[in-house]
């Protein structure tokens, strides 16, 4: 992570034809392939933001204007830069339960059963919760815990 050179990027908003937001995202990426002089690191179309796409770029607005001219259904670049904090709420990080599936053996690292081993029975990625059954318990009782309250011990459960 630290080896990447630090470059400062800016968020620009680009107005699009209605319902063409995702197409415009794809078309921007396509246009970039033939134009090395324009640097864009990410493009996104949040569903809440109808008629716009957001472009993250280290370049000036003039470059983004140049890009806009090459992209069908892109209508205008909104003047001015946006702060990252203005778009941050659109970004939902990947769930913390990544890498945990049914059958994965985990150790509980928090809560009343801390230190106990358990088998994962169900993963709810939207709520970032997993349901486990304690490994050594005689009567299997399902317990639901937060995904970051477990540590993966073994991925290949036989």
């Amino acid at each position, binding site marked *: 992570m630290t080896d990447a050179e630090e470059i400062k990027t800016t968020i620009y908003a680009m107005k699009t034809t209605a319902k063409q937001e995702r197409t415009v995202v794809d078309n921007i990426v396509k246009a970039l392939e033939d134009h090395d002089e324009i640097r864009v690191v990410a493009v*996104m*179309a949040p569903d809440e933001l109808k008629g716009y796409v957001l472009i*993250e770029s280290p370049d000036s607005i003039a470059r983004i204007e140049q890009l806009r001219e090459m992209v069908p259904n892109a209508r205008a670049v909104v003047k001015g830069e946006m702060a990252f904090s203005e778009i941050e709420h659109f970004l939902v990080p*990947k769930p913390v339960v990544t890498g945990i599936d049914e059958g994965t053996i985990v150790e509980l690292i928090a809560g009343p059963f801390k230190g106990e081993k358990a088998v994962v029975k169900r993963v709810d990625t939207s709520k970032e919760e997993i349901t486990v059954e304690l490994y050594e318990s005689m009567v299997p009782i399902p317990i639901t815990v937060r995904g970051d309250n477990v540590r993966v011990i073994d991925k290949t459960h036989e």
Partner: protein
Amino acid sequence: MASKTKKVLRVCRNCHHVVDGEACVTCGSSNLSEDWAGYLYIVDPKHSKIAEKMNIDMPGRYALKVR
């Protein structure tokens, strides 16, 4: 048949990647969802604050939210 010809893009529940086939090429998961929102294209994950915030380190197409 007509309604099925328009392909619905599916997304990996595990890593949010947009998937073309039956399994995710990035993480191998076949836990896919058609119920997702927000479209994100990461071009250069090393230099993108958006990618950093989303915990994404591979270029490609992603969903902002997966249900």
